[in-house]
């Protein structure tokens, strides 16, 4: 491998994404067609992404370690399970924050800062900071889905919002969306396969994300999955995948119910808040016509006001933190269901071809073509990927909901604590005897 003249950082100029090398391109071993490795690299490009100093070529040993790690996801289940084991230390951290509004003559939009910290050698620098807009996340997601069709790609928050109904630039909307984008990116970064996708790398590191020319990284699996005609009918879906489908349907339904209940609670709380404010105001009015009772009554009005504020915080939190996460999971479920459907299609194709090949063999003893065996591999690979992803998805779901629901409980506890503190501090005020002299009520 020769090291060419040092190039400037991709960020310092308008580099085509195709020219930005993935460090894997330093790998020595050619990728054989039989190995369904999901990433293939351009061989003749030179490593770049440095600011002038020649890049250290990844040694063949480490590159092959990487490769073998990637190969593992097509091994039979036992090894795949290891690869997805939770014992692996995390070496890629991403964060989405700092929203900013950009106004140009053509349009107004929001960008977010995407910060990366990593020790992976696929990245040249340990830290990156770039700005991305929603479109860029959308691009990334499409690229991931295209290049990793056997894997579950996390969902993005809703793309389209009705203008006039939702203020796209309000603090709450932007904040909610940003949190969802952060979640999305973190999930991708945590995924043992998706996180090594070169599109992700580009997304995290390139100064200007030129999306028009995507990396031509469609693998054979990718292409063939995309090109599967709908003509094949699935014969027998393995029970475990049927169970997954049923679970997802029911789960989605329950989440929808929880969503509706939460919205109802928010409505009731809002009406309660309206009445409560008026209630507090009457105590103030009353206080004005009293002497000795004036301070106690004002005190009560104050407590009611404090409770109102605390309730408002609770409701805001439910609508900004709780509900969006709930809805995002419904989208996640839809993604998972579509992956299940794709799996069905791949299996159907295999069954169809096998059947045709067997018939031909019976007729004129044509041997079963290699393509059919490759189809079988595909099916097994897909199943393995899916099962591994399912396990990981279940684990994450458990964590996510644990966090979501304990968060909801915490906010409610918080609300009551604030209210309780206010009323408790009122009691001594109510109990203190007035020591003022009573002025006589003479004319």
């Amino acid at each position, binding site marked *: 491998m020769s090291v060419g003249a040092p190039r400037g950082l991709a960020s310092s100029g308008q580099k085509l994404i195709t020219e930005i090398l993935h460090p894997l391109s330093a790998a020595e071993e050619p990728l054989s067609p039989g190995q369904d490795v999901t990433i293939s690299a351009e061989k003749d490009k030179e490593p770049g992404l440095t600011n002038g100093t020649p890049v250290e070529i990844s040694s063949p040993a480490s590159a092959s370690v990487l490769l073998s790690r990637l190969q593992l996801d097509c091994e039979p289940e036992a090894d795949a399970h290891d690869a997805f084991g939770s014992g692996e230390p995390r070496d890629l951290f991403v964060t989405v924050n700092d929203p900013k509004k950009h106004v140009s003559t053509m349009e107004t939009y929001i960008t977010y800062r995407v910060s990366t910290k990593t020790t992976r050698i696929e990245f040249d620098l340990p830290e990156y900071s770039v700005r991305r807009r929603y479109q860029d996340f959308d691009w990334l997601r499409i690229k991931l889905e295209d290049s990793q069709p056997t894997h579950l790609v996390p969902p993005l928050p809703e793309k389209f919002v009705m203008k006039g109904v939702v203020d796209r630039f309000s603090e709450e909307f932007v904040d909610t969306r940003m949190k969802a984008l952060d979640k999305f990116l973190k999930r991708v970064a945590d995924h043992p396969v998706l996180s090594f996708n070169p599109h992700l790398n580009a997304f995290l590191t390139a100064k200007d994300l030129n999306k028009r020319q995507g990396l031509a990284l469609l693998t054979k699996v990718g292409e063939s999955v995309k090109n599967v005609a709908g003509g094949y009918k699935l014969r027998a879906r393995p029970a475990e995948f049927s169970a997954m489908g049923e*679970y997802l349907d*029911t*789960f989605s339904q*329950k989440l929808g*119910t*929880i969503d509706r*209940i939460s919205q*109802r*609670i928010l409505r*009731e*709380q809002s*009406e*309660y808040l309206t*009445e*409560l404010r*008026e*209630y507090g105001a*009457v*105590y103030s*009015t*009353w206080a004005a*016509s009293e002497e*000795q*009772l004036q301070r*106690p*009554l004002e005190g*009560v009005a104050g*407590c009611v006001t404090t409770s109102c504020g605390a309730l408002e915080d609770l409701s805001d939190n439910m609508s900004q933190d709780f509900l969006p996460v709930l809805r995002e999971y419904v989208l996640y479920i839809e993604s998972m269901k579509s992956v299940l459907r794709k799996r069905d299609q791949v299996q159907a194709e295999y069954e169809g071809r096998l059947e045709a090949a067997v018939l031909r063999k019976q007729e004129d003893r044509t041997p079963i073509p290699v393509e059919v065996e490759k189809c079988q591999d595909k099916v097994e690979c897909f199943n393995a990927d899916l099962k591994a992803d399912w396990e990981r998805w279940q684990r994450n779901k*458990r964590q996510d*909901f*644990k966090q979501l*629901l*304990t968060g909801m*409980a*915490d906010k*409610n*506890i918080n*609300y*009551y*604590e604030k*209210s*309780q503190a206010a*009323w*408790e501090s*009122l*009691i001594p005020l*109510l*109990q203190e005897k007035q020591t003022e002299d009573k002025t006589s*009520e*003479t*004319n």
Partner: protein
Amino acid sequence: MVERGTALLKKMEISVAEADKRTGKNTVNMQETYTVYLIETRPAESVSEGGTPVAPDTLWRRYSEFELLRTYLLVTYPYIIVPPLPEKRAEFVWHKLSADNLDPDFVERRRVGLENFLLRLASHPVLSNDSIFFLFLTEVLFLLFQKADSRLKSLSAMFRVKNPDKRFTALKHYSEDLSTVISQLLRIRARVADRLYGVYKVHGNYGRVFSEWSAIEKEMGDGLQSAGHHMDTYAASIDDILEEEEHYADQLKEYLFYTEAVRSVCRKHELIQYELEMAAQDLSYKKQQKEELETGTVRIFSLKGMTSKLFGQETQEQRESKVAALEQSIQEGEEALKEKNAESQEFVEKAWNDIERFKEQKEKDLREALISYAIMQISMCKKGIQVWSNAKECFNKM
């Protein structure tokens, strides 16, 4: 809330212990169902050596009998702010409370209110000594004179007073303000209770969906299921919370009705003042008449004056007899005025005595009501924290 240690209460314990339903024929000879309340009285030092308390004297009374007693007291002691009865019909209800007079919750709160009424009477420095009140507590047969009504009517007549005591005017305005603000407060409180009820009850739906969801989960199932139970508990807790708050509402209502009693004392003062002014006016008119007759000048425009001008003067004799009659009248008028003045002063003194006593009682009672309300709110918050902490524990086990 009601002080012990005053005259009657030193001698006896009073309580309204129970309520019961009766049926009988009413004034238009139709069957009706009504509630009666058991009044128990017992001498104060009644704990015998054996340890078992002496059995109380008891009698049953219905609400309308309490009303008769109160009317009697209003008429007999117009300078006293007579404690009010609990409401006749349930008002300021929020949706769950029945407005039915036979509803057990309403009956129970009314029982408490009637007992409170009797205790207030028994602890009042003036009213507790009333013999009719004593009979009410102890004699089964209780017939009240109806002529109380006519005197009561005069209390609500409208008339213009020139020089009312400013303190009474101020008090009247205060009691009007208080009445308005407490009514407002009770109305809004009922709406707030309604809404709060809604918030808590909807949480019960979480219980059901968590339960259904737990059925499809493996590890998360138990945590979800238990959390669901806590949500059910949360939703159910609002019933007791709001029931307790009704007591606070009742305390406010008592003072709402008290404002009426205050206003009626103010009106009585105005009536007396009016009669006083009328008497003074009448007297001064007569004096003027006398002066005119004596001096021959006609200052007062009257038909008599005009006719005498037109048709000639009266004879000396006629005039003298008129003057004599007037003098007699004036003397009577002066005595009447003196009496009225004395009556007015006595009224003002006694009334203002009671008003001061009432003010102190009001400050104390309302302060205590606010304290107990604050305690209720704290208790509600603590319950909320408890339930959500329990739920959080379950979520953590998911």
